[in-house]
């Protein structure tokens, strides 16, 4: 059943329809939470909470974005709140709250047919996941906020309480670190399509 229809039914109180939405999105939502807070139990808790909030807020969900986008944003917000609370306990004041605008959001990929391509993409996806795990916590968090949660530099700056210049340089450093890890891994860049440049990249 199409996403849109599930949402419509869930809005009218159909819990089974909502449960299907949960099942459809749970892995990606959980993965997002896990990559942000780095704690399985907490991630599960936050991810579930996000869905509960989505249920509670369904009545006003207009559908300008997809349900997936929306639940992703809810999850991000909850995770950020959690991370701030963690920081607060260590004595660091939380940053200004996030702007709620949807911005720069990367829609999750639609699977486009060709099995060979799908396989390559899946392999790269797995290599990327492993590479992310090897990053330091701040590197992973900032990349996840940018690439998965789709936050703008400004929103990231507000979240982490750093200025734009710092956001920019940290994201660059995180990307370079990830690139280095993936180069060493060997599985990732082996799949770079041949129409891309074959220049030497000496790291």
């Amino acid at each position, binding site marked *: 059943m199409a996403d849109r229809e599930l949402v419509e039914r869930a809005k009218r109180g159909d819990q089974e329809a909502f449960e299907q939405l949960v099942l459809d999105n*749970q892995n990606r939502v959980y993965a997002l939470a896990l990559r942000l807070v780095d704690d399985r139990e907490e991630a599960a808790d936050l991810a579930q909470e996000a869905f509960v909030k989505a249920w509670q807020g369904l009545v006003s969900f207009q559908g300008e974005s997809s349900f997936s986008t929306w639940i992703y944003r809810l999850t991000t917000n909850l995770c950020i709140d959690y991370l701030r609370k963690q920081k607060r306990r260590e004595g660091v004041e939380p940053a200004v709250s996030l702007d709620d605008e949807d911005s720069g959001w990367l829609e999750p990929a639609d699977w486009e047919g060709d099995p060979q391509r799908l396989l390559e993409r899946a392999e790269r996806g797995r290599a990327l996941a492993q590479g992310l795990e090897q990053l330091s916590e701040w590197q992973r968090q900032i990349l996840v906020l940018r690439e998965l949660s789709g936050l703008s530099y400004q929103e990231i700056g507000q979240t982490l309480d750093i200025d734009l210049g710092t956001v920019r340089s940290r994201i660059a450093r995180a990307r370079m670190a990830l690139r280095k890890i993936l180069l060493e891994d060997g599985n990732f860049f082996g799949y770079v399509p041949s129409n891309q440049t074959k220049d030497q990249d000496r790291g």
Partner: protein
Amino acid sequence: MACGRYHELLSARLDGLLTAEEERRLEEHLALCPDCRAVGSRLAAIRTAFDDLEEVPAPEGFAQGVMDRIRRETAPRAIPLFRRPQVRALAGLAACLVLAVGLYSAGGHGGQERWEMAARSFDQGASTEVLDGVTGEDGPRVDASLIDPTPADAPQIAAYAASGAARTDGAGGTMEKAAPVEERYFAGVGVSGAEAALVLDRLPDGAAELIPPETAAQPYPGGGTVYLGLSADVLDQVGRLAAEQGAVLQDLSAGNGAEEPLALIVLEG
């Protein structure tokens, strides 16, 4: 070649954030530097791969867990929500809190049961609110449309609201999700004869002097201390200190028309 600064430009370019001048400088450099060209294409490949980032399977029972929580929330019952075996419960509160600590610390005789029974007799009323100790924080974290339009109808774990949303007790401000793993948000812990409470995560500086020496203090289950029989004045002053120092976890004393005697609960850790 020292290409570090160009790496940053390449990264910013992925996000479309180069100025015209930076773009120009980068292009000039790329024309001469195959290394950087390769870095650029590899960064782009990483960006693309995020679309295919491997999912992590949600733990077993995840969806079931979500639906259970939803059902608990939408069913109008007086039974509070026990999120942990250690009995950290949240329930909708009216002005009136029912006694629990007194029973619990009566010790031994089916303390757990009595706790549950006492908790069950809570009135349903306004949602439990958790006020952020940092006042003046503004800006919505989540769309204001996520506020449940009828908060009084059902127990809620925590309403998520934008700042400035009018609350029935007149307290505005950002609200937070309550009761993550080790936080001790709770509701409905009352003390024999006391109504309403102020819950803090520590005793603020200067508060100890405000509490009269003869004040009865009891241990709070889960770690902490309950001060009983405080006057509204004292509670108010302590509350103000706590707010200044960001120690407030829950303020159920304000605007409820609560009558003395009142309780102050200071949690541990």
